[in-house]
Protein backbone atom coordinates (compact mmCIF):
# COMPACT_ATOMS: atom_id res chain seq x y z
CA UNK A 1 0.00 0.00 0.00
CA UNK A 2 1.17 3.51 -0.75
CA UNK A 3 1.02 6.91 0.88
CA UNK A 4 -0.15 10.23 -0.50
CA UNK A 5 0.02 13.92 0.23
CA UNK A 6 -2.55 16.07 -1.55
CA UNK A 7 -1.87 19.74 -2.13
CA UNK A 8 -5.06 21.73 -2.71
CA UNK A 9 -4.47 25.20 -4.15
CA UNK A 10 -7.98 25.91 -5.51
CA UNK A 11 -11.02 27.48 -3.89
CA UNK A 12 -14.12 25.41 -3.17
CA UNK A 13 -17.42 26.40 -4.76
CA UNK A 14 -15.88 28.42 -7.63
CA UNK A 15 -13.81 25.58 -9.10
CA UNK A 16 -14.01 21.79 -9.36
CA UNK A 17 -10.40 21.10 -8.28
CA UNK A 18 -11.04 20.93 -4.54
CA UNK A 19 -13.95 18.54 -5.10
CA UNK A 20 -11.72 16.35 -7.30
CA UNK A 21 -9.13 16.27 -4.52
CA UNK A 22 -11.79 15.09 -2.08
CA UNK A 23 -12.90 12.32 -4.45
CA UNK A 24 -9.28 11.27 -4.99
CA UNK A 25 -8.61 11.15 -1.25
CA UNK A 26 -11.74 9.10 -0.63
CA UNK A 27 -10.82 6.64 -3.40
CA UNK A 28 -7.31 6.34 -1.98
CA UNK A 29 -8.42 5.46 1.55
CA UNK A 30 -11.08 3.11 0.18
CA UNK A 31 -8.30 1.27 -1.66
CA UNK A 32 -6.44 0.97 1.68
CA UNK A 33 -3.79 3.51 0.79
CA UNK A 34 -2.75 6.10 3.36
CA UNK A 35 -3.42 9.77 2.87
CA UNK A 36 -0.82 11.36 5.13
CA UNK A 37 -2.56 14.68 4.88
CA UNK A 38 -4.37 17.20 2.74
CA UNK A 39 -2.50 20.48 2.68
CA UNK A 40 -4.46 23.60 1.71
CA UNK A 41 -2.52 26.48 0.16
CA UNK A 42 -3.36 29.66 -1.82
CA UNK A 43 -7.12 29.86 -2.52
CA UNK A 44 -7.33 26.27 -1.34
CA UNK A 45 -7.28 27.59 2.22
CA UNK A 46 -10.86 28.81 1.67
CA UNK A 47 -11.92 25.17 1.98
CA UNK A 48 -11.31 25.54 5.70
CA UNK A 49 -13.94 28.22 6.31
CA UNK A 50 -16.44 27.06 8.91
CA UNK A 51 -18.77 29.89 7.88
CA UNK A 52 -19.72 28.41 4.50
CA UNK A 53 -23.50 27.98 4.30
CA UNK A 54 -24.02 25.54 1.46
CA UNK A 55 -27.50 25.61 -0.13
CA UNK A 56 -29.40 22.38 0.50
CA UNK A 57 -29.43 21.46 -3.21
CA UNK A 58 -25.65 21.76 -3.58
CA UNK A 59 -22.90 19.35 -2.51
CA UNK A 60 -21.52 20.29 0.92
CA UNK A 61 -17.78 19.93 0.36
CA UNK A 62 -16.97 21.34 3.80
CA UNK A 63 -19.02 18.58 5.45
CA UNK A 64 -17.37 16.03 3.17
CA UNK A 65 -13.88 17.15 4.22
CA UNK A 66 -14.90 16.87 7.86
CA UNK A 67 -16.23 13.32 7.34
CA UNK A 68 -13.04 12.34 5.58
CA UNK A 69 -11.01 13.59 8.53
CA UNK A 70 -13.24 11.97 11.13
CA UNK A 71 -13.91 8.65 9.41
CA UNK A 72 -10.44 8.03 8.00
CA UNK A 73 -8.11 10.04 10.24
CA UNK A 74 -6.90 12.18 7.36
CA UNK A 75 -5.30 15.41 8.68
CA UNK A 76 -6.62 18.61 7.08
CA UNK A 77 -3.84 21.19 7.24
CA UNK A 78 -4.32 24.81 6.28
CA UNK A 79 -1.31 27.03 5.59
CA UNK A 80 -1.54 29.81 8.17
CA UNK A 81 0.02 32.60 6.08
CA UNK A 82 -2.00 31.86 2.93
CA UNK A 83 -5.17 31.44 5.00
CA UNK A 84 -5.01 34.47 7.27
CA UNK A 85 -4.65 36.96 4.41
CA UNK A 86 -7.81 35.38 2.93
CA UNK A 87 -9.86 35.66 6.10
CA UNK A 88 -9.48 32.06 7.22
CA UNK A 89 -8.35 32.54 10.79
CA UNK A 90 -8.31 30.59 14.04
CA UNK A 91 -9.49 31.84 17.40
CA UNK A 92 -5.85 32.61 18.27
CA UNK A 93 -5.34 34.65 15.08
CA UNK A 94 -8.57 36.47 15.87
CA UNK A 95 -7.48 37.30 19.41
CA UNK A 96 -4.12 38.57 18.15
CA UNK A 97 -5.91 40.95 15.79
CA UNK A 98 -8.63 42.00 18.27
CA UNK A 99 -11.29 40.45 16.09
CA UNK A 100 -13.96 38.55 18.05
CA UNK A 101 -14.69 36.32 15.07
CA UNK A 102 -12.89 33.43 13.45
CA UNK A 103 -13.53 30.94 10.67
CA UNK A 104 -11.16 28.00 11.09
CA UNK A 105 -12.04 25.19 13.48
CA UNK A 106 -11.24 21.51 13.96
CA UNK A 107 -10.77 19.13 12.25
CA UNK A 108 -8.98 21.72 10.07
CA UNK A 109 -5.65 22.75 11.59
CA UNK A 110 -3.69 25.93 11.03
CA UNK A 111 -0.06 25.01 10.34
CA UNK A 112 3.14 26.35 8.79
CA UNK A 113 4.64 25.17 5.50
CA UNK A 114 7.09 23.01 7.45
CA UNK A 115 4.25 20.55 8.04
CA UNK A 116 3.94 20.11 4.30
CA UNK A 117 7.65 19.26 4.07
CA UNK A 118 7.13 16.55 6.69
CA UNK A 119 4.04 15.16 4.90
CA UNK A 120 5.88 15.05 1.57
CA UNK A 121 8.97 13.40 3.02
CA UNK A 122 6.85 10.45 4.11
CA UNK A 123 4.67 10.18 1.01
CA UNK A 124 5.12 8.13 -2.11
CA UNK A 125 3.20 10.64 -4.16
CA UNK A 126 2.33 14.32 -4.01
CA UNK A 127 -0.75 15.18 -6.07
CA UNK A 128 -1.76 18.80 -6.57
CA UNK A 129 -5.34 19.96 -7.22
Amino acid at each position, binding site marked *: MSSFTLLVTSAPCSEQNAYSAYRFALAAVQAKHTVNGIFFYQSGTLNGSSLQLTPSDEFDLYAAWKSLANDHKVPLMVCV*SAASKRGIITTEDAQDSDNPHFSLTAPFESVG*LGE*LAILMKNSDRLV*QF
Partner: protein
Amino acid sequence: MSDSNTLAIINQSAPYGNSNGQESLDMAMAMSNFAQDVSLFFIEDGVLQLLSKQTPANIDAKAYHKTFPALEFYDIDNIYVCKQSLESRGIKVSELCVDITLIELHELPTLLTCQQHVMSF
Protein backbone atom coordinates in the same frame (compact mmCIF):
# COMPACT_ATOMS: atom_id res chain seq x y z
CA MET B 1 15.50 6.85 -9.47
CA SER B 2 14.54 10.08 -7.73
CA ASP B 3 16.49 11.54 -4.82
CA SER B 4 14.54 11.83 -1.62
CA ASN B 5 13.76 15.28 -0.29
CA THR B 6 14.05 16.84 -3.71
CA LEU B 7 11.31 19.15 -4.91
CA ALA B 8 10.81 20.74 -8.31
CA ILE B 9 8.63 23.83 -8.48
CA ILE B 10 7.40 24.70 -11.95
CA ASN B 11 6.48 28.34 -12.51
CA GLN B 12 4.29 28.88 -15.54
CA SER B 13 2.32 31.98 -14.51
CA ALA B 14 2.99 35.62 -15.27
CA PRO B 15 3.50 37.79 -12.17
CA TYR B 16 0.86 40.10 -10.58
CA GLY B 17 -2.22 39.01 -12.59
CA ASN B 18 -2.61 36.30 -9.96
CA SER B 19 -0.77 35.34 -6.80
CA ASN B 20 0.90 32.19 -8.18
CA GLY B 21 4.36 33.74 -8.59
CA GLN B 22 4.53 35.26 -5.14
CA GLU B 23 3.11 32.20 -3.38
CA SER B 24 5.35 29.86 -5.35
CA LEU B 25 8.37 31.81 -4.12
CA ASP B 26 7.09 31.69 -0.53
CA MET B 27 6.72 27.93 -0.94
CA ALA B 28 10.23 27.52 -2.39
CA MET B 29 11.90 29.41 0.46
CA ALA B 30 9.90 27.59 3.13
CA MET B 31 10.61 24.16 1.64
CA SER B 32 14.30 24.96 1.43
CA ASN B 33 14.24 26.02 5.08
CA PHE B 34 12.78 22.64 5.91
CA ALA B 35 15.62 20.70 4.33
CA GLN B 36 14.08 20.12 0.92
CA ASP B 37 16.46 20.39 -2.01
CA VAL B 38 14.47 22.79 -4.20
CA SER B 39 14.91 23.35 -7.94
CA LEU B 40 12.96 26.06 -9.74
CA PHE B 41 11.76 25.80 -13.33
CA PHE B 42 10.46 28.80 -15.24
CA ILE B 43 8.53 27.95 -18.39
CA GLU B 44 5.90 29.67 -20.56
CA ASP B 45 4.65 32.91 -18.93
CA GLY B 46 6.61 32.01 -15.80
CA VAL B 47 9.75 33.45 -17.42
CA LEU B 48 8.13 36.90 -17.23
CA GLN B 49 8.57 36.82 -13.45
CA LEU B 50 12.34 37.04 -13.93
CA LEU B 51 12.47 40.30 -15.91
CA SER B 52 14.77 42.87 -14.22
CA LYS B 53 12.85 45.92 -15.32
CA GLN B 54 9.61 45.59 -13.36
CA THR B 55 8.03 48.29 -11.17
CA PRO B 56 5.09 46.57 -9.45
CA ALA B 57 4.81 49.43 -6.93
CA ASN B 58 2.70 51.10 -9.66
CA ILE B 59 -0.03 48.57 -8.92
CA ASP B 60 0.72 48.24 -5.19
CA ALA B 61 2.23 44.81 -5.67
CA LYS B 62 5.38 43.51 -4.02
CA ALA B 63 8.61 43.59 -6.04
CA TYR B 64 9.20 39.94 -5.21
CA HIS B 65 11.43 39.48 -8.26
CA LYS B 66 14.14 41.23 -6.24
CA THR B 67 14.27 38.12 -4.06
CA PHE B 68 15.37 35.82 -6.89
CA PRO B 69 19.06 36.93 -6.79
CA ALA B 70 19.06 36.18 -3.05
CA LEU B 71 17.83 32.60 -3.45
CA GLU B 72 21.38 31.25 -3.40
CA PHE B 73 21.51 32.22 0.28
CA TYR B 74 18.49 29.99 0.78
CA ASP B 75 20.48 27.16 -0.84
CA ILE B 76 18.33 27.33 -3.95
CA ASP B 77 20.94 27.19 -6.68
CA ASN B 78 19.12 25.47 -9.51
CA ILE B 79 17.06 27.91 -11.52
CA TYR B 80 16.17 26.50 -14.91
CA VAL B 81 14.61 28.63 -17.64
CA CYS B 82 13.05 27.35 -20.86
CA LYS B 83 14.90 28.78 -23.87
CA GLN B 84 11.91 28.55 -26.22
CA SER B 85 9.65 30.33 -23.71
CA LEU B 86 12.12 33.25 -23.63
CA GLU B 87 12.46 33.30 -27.42
CA SER B 88 8.76 33.31 -28.16
CA ARG B 89 8.44 36.36 -25.90
CA GLY B 90 11.46 38.12 -27.38
CA ILE B 91 13.32 38.10 -24.06
CA LYS B 92 17.12 37.98 -23.86
CA VAL B 93 18.91 36.27 -20.97
CA SER B 94 20.59 39.61 -20.20
CA GLU B 95 17.17 41.04 -19.33
CA LEU B 96 16.72 38.60 -16.43
CA CYS B 97 17.37 39.55 -12.81
CA VAL B 98 19.18 36.36 -11.79
CA ASP B 99 21.74 33.86 -13.07
CA ILE B 100 19.91 30.96 -14.63
CA THR B 101 20.53 27.72 -16.47
CA LEU B 102 18.96 27.67 -19.93
CA ILE B 103 17.17 24.46 -20.87
CA GLU B 104 15.55 23.30 -24.08
CA LEU B 105 11.79 22.80 -24.25
CA HIS B 106 12.06 19.02 -24.25
CA GLU B 107 14.55 18.87 -21.36
CA LEU B 108 11.94 19.52 -18.68
CA PRO B 109 10.70 15.91 -18.27
CA THR B 110 14.29 14.62 -18.12
CA LEU B 111 15.25 17.11 -15.44
CA LEU B 112 12.15 16.25 -13.45
CA THR B 113 13.14 12.56 -13.44
CA CYS B 114 15.53 12.91 -10.51
CA GLN B 115 13.07 14.92 -8.42
CA GLN B 116 10.96 13.23 -5.75
CA HIS B 117 7.99 15.59 -5.96
CA VAL B 118 6.75 18.30 -8.30
CA MET B 119 4.51 21.31 -7.71
CA SER B 120 3.34 23.84 -10.27
CA PHE B 121 2.12 27.39 -9.92
